[in-house]
């Protein structure tokens, strides 16, 4: 520890774009859909947006779910449109999958399974973060 009272600004690498963290299961609340709406708007404005799935949020990526069985409009189907919005960076936390005994089988392509340190490094590369 130094005894100086100087405030130093840490030298972060150049960060760009928006990261959206999805941390909630898909059908118990509207958080996933609210996050999706933001992602698609950023995509349609040609702004860089990346999606992060962590905690119960990983359930949003799991294949063979049907929201209509619980009378919920299945917004997960819209995930397949990500490529048309140039949303290419989709990260899922491996530890969150392991904790829930979930296989790495997703309903969309291009999902990157990452260790906790890779996940946080990817998150850190973004200028802005929203969490839902």
């Amino acid at each position, binding site marked *: 520890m130094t005894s100086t009272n100087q405030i130093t600004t840490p030298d972060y690498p150049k960060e760009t774009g*928006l990261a959206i963290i999805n941390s909630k299961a898909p059908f118990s609340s*509207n*958080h996933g859909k*609210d996050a999706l*709406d*933001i992602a698609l*708007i*950023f995509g349609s*404005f040609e*702004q860089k947006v990346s999606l992060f799935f962590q905690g119960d949020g990983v359930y949003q990526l799991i294949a063979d779910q049907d929201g209509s069985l619980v009378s919920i409009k299945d917004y997960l189907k819209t995930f397949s449109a990500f490529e048309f919005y140039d949303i290419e960076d989709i990260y899922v936390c491996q530890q969150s999958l392991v904790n829930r005994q979930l296989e790495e089988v997703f309903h969309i392509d291009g999902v990157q399974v990452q260790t906790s340190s890779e996940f946080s490094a990817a998150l850190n590369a973004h*200028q*802005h*973060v*929203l*969490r839902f």
Partner: protein
Amino acid sequence: MKTLAVVVTTSPYSHLTITALTYVEAALVAGINVIGVFFYQDGVMHANEDISIASDEYQAIAHWQRLQQEYQLPLHVCITAAEKRGIACDSIDNEKINQIFTVSGLGELVELTTKASRLVQF
């Protein structure tokens, strides 16, 4: 010049909203350029004209109004999220939106995010 944008997703009776207000006011007092506050999810309930919170409780809406007037702080409310919660602006007779708020959409959030050096969510 460093700029700040804030996203509020908590209701006017949430204690987290007090944290948001304290944070935004501290930034304004410190001379930071707060380019706007975007109300999303349950945050849009701040714009409901009919909200009435007991007088001995924290008056979040009155505090947002004070900041808006003192600092010309733009307060944006997401209309899709607002209509879902019964806060409509579809006719003059049925005007439920508090006049201190600007009716906006998620496009405004894109605008704020791209302009802001930092985005903070409550």
